Structures are given as structure tokens and as C-alpha cells.
């Protein structure tokens, strides 16, 4: 049943990477504020509609 150990190994690696991501996010201060992100995501600064073509964007990005 060596497949079992491969799967457990792979799963631990995945879980470990998530753990590292979690530690990073805490250290990075991602969760220092655990309320306003939920409100801020609701605001979309509406900018008066204007038409711009994709080619213009390509030029802008250059």
C-alpha cells in the first residue's frame, strides 16, 4: 500500500504549504483588521463611463 504513503506525503506537503501561507498571512498583517475588508469590498468607485478600446489599453500598458 505504498500509494497510501505517497498520498499522505503529498497531502502533508500541501497542508504544509497552506500552513506556510497561513503563517505568512498572519505575519504580513493580513488579519490585523478583521472587519473593514468586508465593508470595503462593497465600494466600487464608479467612474463616469467612458469608452476605451482594447488597443488603446495595449498602448497604455506599453
Amino acid at each position, binding site marked *: *500500500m505504498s*500509494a497510501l504513503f505517497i498520498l499522505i506525503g503529498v497531502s502533508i506537503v500541501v497542508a504544509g504549504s497552506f500552513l506556510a501561507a497561513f503563517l505568512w498571512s498572519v505575519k504580513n498583517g*493580513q488579519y490585523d483588521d*478583521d472587519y473593514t475588508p*468586508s465593508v470595503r469590498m462593497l465600494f466600487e*468607485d464608479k467612474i463616469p463611463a467612458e469608452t476605451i478600446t482594447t488597443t488603446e*489599453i495595449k498602448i497604455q500598458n506599453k
Partner: protein
Amino acid sequence: MQVEKFYYDNKTVKNFAYATILWGVVGMLAGLWVSLQLIFPSLNITQYGSFGRLRPLHTNAVIFAFVGNGIFMGVYYSLQRLCKARMFSDKLSAIHFWGWQLIIVAAAITLPMGITTSKEYAELEWPIDIAITVMWVVFGWNMFGTILKRREKHLYVAIWFYIATFVTVAVLHIVNSFELPVTLFKSYSWYAGVQDALVQWWYGHNAVAFFLTTPYLGLMYYFMPKAANRPVYSYKLSIIHFWALIFLYIWAGPHHLLYTALPNWAQSLGVVFSVMLIFPSWGGMINGLLTLRGAWDRVRDDVILKFMVVAVTAYGMATFEGPMLSLKSVNAVAHFTDWIIAHVHVGALGWNGMLTFGILYWLIPRIFNTNLYSKKLANNHFWLGTLGIIFYAVPMYWAGFTQSSMWKQFTEAGQLKYAFLETVTYMKPFYAMRSLGGTLYLVGVLFMVYNIYKTVRAGKLVANEAAEAAPLQKEYVKHAGEHWHRVIERRPVQLMIFSLIVILIGGAIEMIPTFLIKSNIPTISSVKPYTPLELQGRDIYVREGCYTCHSQMVRPFRSETERYGEYSKAGEFVYDHPFQWGSKRTGPDLAREGTGNLKKSDGWHFRHLREPSSMSEGSIMPAYSFMLEQNLDTSTTVAKINAMRTLGVPYEKGYENIANRELMTQAKEISMLLNNDSIRISPNKEVIALISYLQRLGTDISKNANAQK
């Protein structure tokens, strides 16, 4: 700080939205069609339209085409706005979109042709598997690129769900798709038997978790607050349940293999984690529903919220049922029955479907700068969809309980009360009701197609939506003369994720072949490799998707050993690349088809394959008369024997050279036997190979039992 002006890319969002709708209709139509085939077997028109080939088409279309495009639609819309940045690269967006559609088209062509690996929800053959990997990397590249150039420091919880989806699906796909190519369109799974089953269901369960659940939770956390215009109930809860969910999910896979030959401790581990999963799952459901606290009156008027409420409720029901189904005693009843079909459709139709529709109704008018054409039509869609789910799920639950009880029912004299066929014909009314439910649901979707068509016609796509935000302050200042790799090294998380994937591919390539083959030394001496004819027959069994209706796994219950014979042992499957345990018994188990009182004559099999109802009255199995016409392709025999040997099957060196001769000898024997039964058939027809395989099933073990006596 200078505010920057930039533009959101709505064109890619629109493309994915259209693809979601198109493939949704196609996938559901395929589902309705295969459900009708279970009532009217005559609807199995030609080999390309038989149930065994179309059911994988249905599941793949719904999961990877409908939900897949739905994920990308939602991610491309929400990620840009949450990061206050345009997608990283328009080119990558286009490649991702068209590449994914090409993969879907390739699936739609190859699956009806019988090109399949037979691993559920991973049926696509190896060239397409590679294409999926490439497209997935393109998606990840585009997503992480966007995250890196974001103008908002905080990563909103939805983004975390997207990241988890990307990472885990990449790993799952790579590990489960380990296969040895035989020809351009045929490969053998690198794993055999029990191991293959374990890897497959580790994948299968996590595909549900990380393709159908986590990305959709991310979408819920973005679109539900948006639609309700109020913050999520508890942001804290969303963070906690995210981390809890992803840490628990990857361990629950073995609950798909309860009572099988999998070691008991692995089964128990799977059960424990499955039961624990209810907490993070319900955390998400409660968070979603309570977002509407104090605003429930709006649900009465707002059809989008209605869709979302039903979606989240369905999620709650399915994630309550999941842990229950993973309890061994419940699983003993539910496994192999239509109960599971009901369970997955509450998830797919309820959670994924209804959330997708809600998002579409919210998003399309916005990117087209107009209003929804008709709220009334959307309301009708909502009710048709909801009723459709009920009409689908209730009969299937009923069918599941009933059929399982009938399978397990003994007479007072201690004999099985029902023949298998009786339990099948009893299911027909339930299947008919299910088709009605599916039709309602599909009609609702067609309402949506019309509604969205009219909406799109009335508006004009805002392909590039203007937005403004201040850039993030750079935390790092480049120093003079630094090397190019400093750029990567400053990003530990991204570096880690990508290196993880690279390591996995490398490690897997190195480890799996040697590691697994060594452990495949048979533990039961009487278990022998398949003869060339049986191997070819087995590949026909795989090609036709027989596993979609027939299991090959006798569980250790008296009701099963009485019906099918000795329960299945791990050692019996060591040469099975891929395993064929199946997950559903629409037809009887075939693990012991060639032995004991299940043994039938070659003539019986021949007539049964030609016209199943001629041997089993009321059978709903498709007819396989085309196998009487089609010649067996023996040009692949050498390559197949060689491939099997590479995988550790002990064919002697040089056997491939005499394999086709042996194949012909065995085929002629069967043809002679059939001739004695007044059936004239040339030995080079496909049906002969399939019969040889069916007659082989289970015989190794019974030889052993006879020898011991």
C-alpha cells in the same frame, strides 16, 4: 500619493460567462439524455451514444465545462476588483479562455469515441491531461501575476479560496494522472488495483472539495455581499473557516472506499476527517445565510438573492449529508445506490448551479451597463430550478433507500428475496421522475438563456471598465547591481508554491514507478496476469465505460457474498491498470462474473451483449451488437504487453512476440464453443475478447479456494 487610473477587463469575463451558459446547457442536456437512456434503453443510439460513453461526457461537461467556466468567470471578475488591478496579462487571459474551451471540445469528441482512462472525473486521456496542466499553469500565472501587482494590500478571503483551489487542483491532477502512454489515445494508470482506487478517490473527493466547493465559496464571499449590498456576516468566521476547511479536506478521500480492501486505519482516518468537516462547511453556510440577517424581506423581491439563498442552503444540506454518508453504517446502505446520485445533484444543481445563475443575473447587466431584461422570467427560472432539484432529489433518495433495502432483503428461509433484475425494473418509475426534475431544471436554464440574450442585446459591453486606486507602497527598494533572481527570492510564498509543484512533478516521476511496482508483488499466488485476449477485452470494457453501471467490488456483507460470492481481496487486483471497482450498481457487481453460480455460458454472454433484454427481460442495459461487427484491433497487443510489463506485470520476456498468436488461439476456442451453441462468429470480433474477459472475472480466487479444498 498619486491615484492611478486603470481599466478592468470585462471581455474575458463575458467570454467565460457565455461559455458557462453554453456548456451548462450542453452538460445538462447530456445528463437528461443519459437519464432517459435508463428508462428507454433503445435511446442508446450507436456505440458513440451509449450510456457508458455519454455519462462521463455529462459529468465532465458539468464539472469542468459548466462549473469550470463559472469559476473562471467569477474569478476574473472579482479578482480584478478585489486587487484593484487589471488581470496580469490580456494575452494569458485569451490563451486561458480559448485553451480551456479547446480542452472541452477535445473531451466532447474523445469521450463518445470511447477514448477514456475510466478514472471517474479524470477520464480524459493523457494528451488532454497535459493540455489541462498547461492551461492550469496559465490560469495560475495570470492569477498570481494579478495578485502581485495589486493595489490593495489586504487579500480578501475570496482570493484565498482561489489560491487554495489553484494549488490543490494542480497537485491532485498531477498525482492522479500518472499514466503510461501505450498509443496516442490509450494509456494505463501507473497505479494498480487498490492503490489506483485509493489515488483515484483521493483525487475524486478533493476534486469535489477544490473544484466544486472552495472556488464557489470564494465566489459566494464576493458575489453574495455584493448582491445583498451588505458585508458578510462575520469576516472573522470567514477567515477561520477557510483555514479549517482546507486543512481538513485533503484527508477525507478514503470515505469513498469504506468496506473495501483499503486498510482499515485509512478508512477510519477518512471517516474522522469527514465528520470534522461539518464544522468548517457549516461555518461557510452560516456565514453566507446570516449575511442576509435583518434583510430577509429583500429576498422576497430580489431574485438574485433567492438563487443565492437556495445555493447556500443546498451547500449546507450536502455538507451535512457528506459526513453522514461517510459513517460506515450509513455508507453500507448508501454506497453503490442512487442515494449518492441524489447527494451529488443537491450539490451540483443546488450549490453550483443556483449560485452560478445568481452570479450570471447579477454580473451580465453590470458588464453590459444595462438592466436585466425580465425579472419575471428570472423568477420563473428560480422556481423551475428549485422544483427541478426537488423533483430530482426526492425520487433518487427514495430509489436509493429502496434498492439498497431490496438488495439486502432475505426471506425467512435465509435466501435473498430479490433477483438483481427485479430491483432494477423497480427503479424505473423513480428514474422517470428524476428525468422530469431534470427537464424542469433545464427548461429554467433555457429561460435564463433567453433572458440573458435579451439583456445583452439591450446593452453594450463595457469591455474596459475604468477604475482608480492608489498604488501599493513598495516595501522593497531595489539596490544597484542585484541579480535577476532577487525578484523571485523576494516572494517567498509564490516561490514556494511554484517550487512545490515542480518538486511534486519531479518527485512523482522518480518515485512512483519504482516505489509502486515493487509493492505490486502478488500476495495471492493463484492471481495471474490477463491473457492477451482478456487484456484486449478488458480494454473494451474500459472503453465502453462498463464501470459507470457495474462495480467489481464485493463488500464483506452477507447480502453481497450470497449474491456475488467471496468478498473482494486487495491481492486480486494487482494487475488491474486501471482498477474497475466502479462506484454505482445500476447493474449487478461483476467481480465474480466468471465463477460459481454467476458463471454463464459464452453463448449467454454473446446473446446478452447483442440484445440484453433477450436474456434478462426488462434489462436497461444498452445493446452492444456493434461488437459483433467490429474487428478487434490486435495491432496494439505488443505495445500493451510491453507497457504492462513496464508497470510490473510479470509477462515473460519475449512474450509480446507470441502474444497475438495466443490471442488467436484463445479467440478460436471461444468461437468454437459459440459454434457448438449454434452461433456463427468469426474469432477476430471484439465481442469474443470481451466475453473472454467477463469469463475470467473472479476465477483466480476460486481456483485458490478449490485448491485448498
